[in-house]
């Protein structure tokens, strides 16, 4: 019993870490540190999965945790790192909206997500029910990142962090999806990352830039 309480506390802490990392992702100025935080998010996600596996009797969650660690903590960040290195785009992150305003919007979104999740948390009896609001908030913050960043690479990281958050939501709300779905999604994400890499190369060679605004301007001129 005591151990269960302990693990529940640990899950809550992991959830708060997730949220914190989402904020950190938003707040970074340098592309490489964004990547570091993204990797950290993957690791926290893996830990959370492991914790949930401990208190529930779904054995496949252990496998899930291991896969998350490998894929999202290591492989994806490494792929993105390679692209960044190859293309020499470790310059500053260029936000559309300045940082303080982004942070204020992010805070508002967290409040909204708590407001939304409240009625659902009330009817859930899972050990992880109090993570739902945070999970929703991380999804929102991922979206916000996609919207407010100019560079294609940061948008992709935003997209992947939404995926992380959705995974986190699934773990928190239902103790994980069926194994086959999870494997499928994991491979989808992997392939998506590879395709993104190809796209970046193509975009760079066609438009001379990875800045979405510049690309749009050039596409219009044609």
């Amino acid at each position, binding site marked *: 019993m005591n151990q269960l309480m302990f693990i529940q506390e640990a899950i809550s802490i992991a959830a708060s870490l997730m949220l914190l990392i989402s904020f950190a992702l938003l707040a970074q100025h340098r592309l490489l540190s964004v990547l570091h935080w993204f990797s950290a998010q993957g690791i926290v996600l893996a830990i959370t999965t492991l914790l949930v596996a401990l208190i529930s009797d779904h054995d496949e969650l252990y496998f899930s945790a291991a896969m998350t660690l490998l894929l999202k903590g290591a492989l994806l960040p490494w792929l993105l790192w390679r692209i960044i290195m190859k293309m020499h785009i470790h310059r500053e992150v260029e936000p559309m909206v300045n940082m303080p305003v982004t942070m204020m919007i992010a805070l508002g979104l967290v409040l909204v997500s708590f407001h939304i999740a409240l009625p659902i948390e009330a009817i859930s009896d899972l050990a992880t029910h109090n993570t739902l609001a945070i999970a929703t908030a991380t999804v929102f913050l991922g979206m916000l990142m996609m919207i407010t960043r100019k560079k294609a690479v940061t948008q992709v990281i935003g997209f992947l962090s939404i995926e992380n958050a959705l995974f986190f939501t699934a773990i928190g709300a239902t103790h994980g999806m069926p194994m086959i779905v999870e494997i499928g999604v994991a491979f989808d994400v992997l392939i998506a990352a590879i395709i993104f890499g190809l796209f970046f190369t193509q975009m760079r060679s066609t438009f001379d830039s990875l800045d*979405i605004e510049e690309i749009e301007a050039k596409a219009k001129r044609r």
Partner: protein
Amino acid sequence: MHLLASTSCSLQLALAAMFSVLLAALLSPCLGKRSDLQRLAISLLIALSGALAIAAGISGLLGDTAAATLPIGLPWLPMHIHIDALAAFFMLTIGVLLMPVGIYSVGYMKSFTANGQSLAQLGIFLPLFALGMEGVVMADDAYAFMVFWELMSVSSYFLVTWEHAHEQNRRAGFLYLLMAHLAGLLILGSFAVLYAASGSFTFAGMRGGELSAGMATAAFLLAAFGFGMKAGVVPLHAWLPEAHPVAPSNASALMSGIMLKVAIFGFIRVTWDLVGSDAFIWWWGGLLLAAGSSSALGGVLMALQQHDLKRLLAYHSVENIGIILIGLGLAMIFAAAGHPLIAALGLIAALYHTINHALFKGLLFMGAGAVLHATGSRDMESMGGLIRHMPITAALFLVASISIAALPPFNGFVSEWLTFQTALLTPELDNTLLAALIPFSASMLALAGALAAACFVKVFGIVFQGNARSKAAEQAHEVDRWMQIGMAIPALFCLLLGVLPTLFIPLIDSVPQLLIHHSLAASVQAGHWLWLTPISAERAAYAAPLLITGLLLVGGLLYWRLHRRNNRILRGSVWSCGHPHLNPRMQYTATSFSQPLRRIFSGIYQPDKHLGNAYEDHPLIVRKIAYAVHVKDLAFDKLYRPIGTATHHLADRIAREHGRGMHAYLAYIFISIIALLIWIAR
């Protein structure tokens, strides 16, 4: 086929009428090579259809009513058609103009084939247009009604854009199509309300539906605006003066003469028949009355300032639709107030004016077509003196002018007189607001009548009298026999309907019997067959035959006085004011004739004057004075343009949003997700 087995003669005649125009539309492309045969076939089939429609209408009005289901349409929604008193009356209205226009077209379209123009467009869409109008009248369910209604609208669009090489005609066509579709949408909305109340598409089912007051009002308002837009009620009339002048004259005669009446028919069908006179609310009639009065006065005021002959006639259509609406509005007010007999009188007045307007406006447009045919111009300022070259056209045009000016002994007088008689029964009303509104509206009607008379003095005086203002007018020639016969028939009807209202009113009396279950037959001829007595002989009576006898006597006496033997008669040209030698440029013009009214009503016209003087070397010696005045339609600037601009702005805004980048799209998705989530979590 139970259709052919049906015993009703009127229904078979009506179907034959529809079939004959359908045949014309199908036959026309097959005869493309032999344009003379094509022209003859189309025109005569249209005339045949008109004759059959007259026969169907009369037998329907005499009580031969029937319904049938056509074996066409959707599998679960066959087309129902029927002929009842209302449909029969409008079949008659369509027929009395369709037949002469068909005959007229034989001659009129000759000029097109002579110029080498192809009749392909006219040959298909003119019969289809007639088919659409006949179908709308015959429809017995909302589906058939809308199909034929759209057939009518779309085919008339192709008639408007007949000379589509001119940009102005394409613009007129677009405006027409736009407003026709808007009208169609509103009418569809009205049927949707009725369907929601009854759960049935057939008119029989809709009549049985239980309508709450709110739904009845919604159906009424949608129908009023939808049909009003098509009928050209002020301020929804803007398409009318644009579209009617540019269509070929036989088509504009049909559009102005019948199509507007079909819109009136649709309005009567939906409000009086489907919604039912029991559901009327007192202010409905007031709304109609206001719309009718403003159309009557606004139409004639705008007409006065036109110098394009067909455009002038188009504005007169607005006026006459207004007069019809005044009659309908009065009938509605009295029906809602529980005076069905007076309501029947108002309805009869409106219907009488409907058929009258079809006749004389059709005739006027045909006359304008004849003048256009002879001089090649629609501009009145370039005409003059045509009475010497085209005496028959002039005489027939004069008949129509007297009719539209509501002077006895022609038909226009009878229907306007009946409308006034209805308005004079206002003291029977308890509602003081309406009782105060009606005299106001009646005085506007009287003013409109007087102004219409002034306007047709101008038209006849400028176009047919005086001296020719252009080479073309000097060399004008009389039109051929086909066109003369086509114009003579409605002129004859104008006289007959003016002289014999006591025979005609009992015939159309079955319409109020159908709609409000009250008959006027008992009171109309209470005294003698000569005397038309709408309510009672003590109140008012009119005997056209006696009046004609009197007019002939007075006329004969005057002629005798003038032409007595040894009486020297000095002849001068009209507009010369007794001066012997005036050149054509010194005559009165259409613009100068209407100048006093332009000054009186300058608040409404807001005329735009241009004075361009050319001087000799010395600034006091004027070489040339050019004076031009333009009168704009106020509704266009104050209502249409703002709506148009607002729509453009909105579309531009949306287009700009479409052009935004990927971030904006992401933000839209994001914001809508959040909004939806918040909405769910409420």
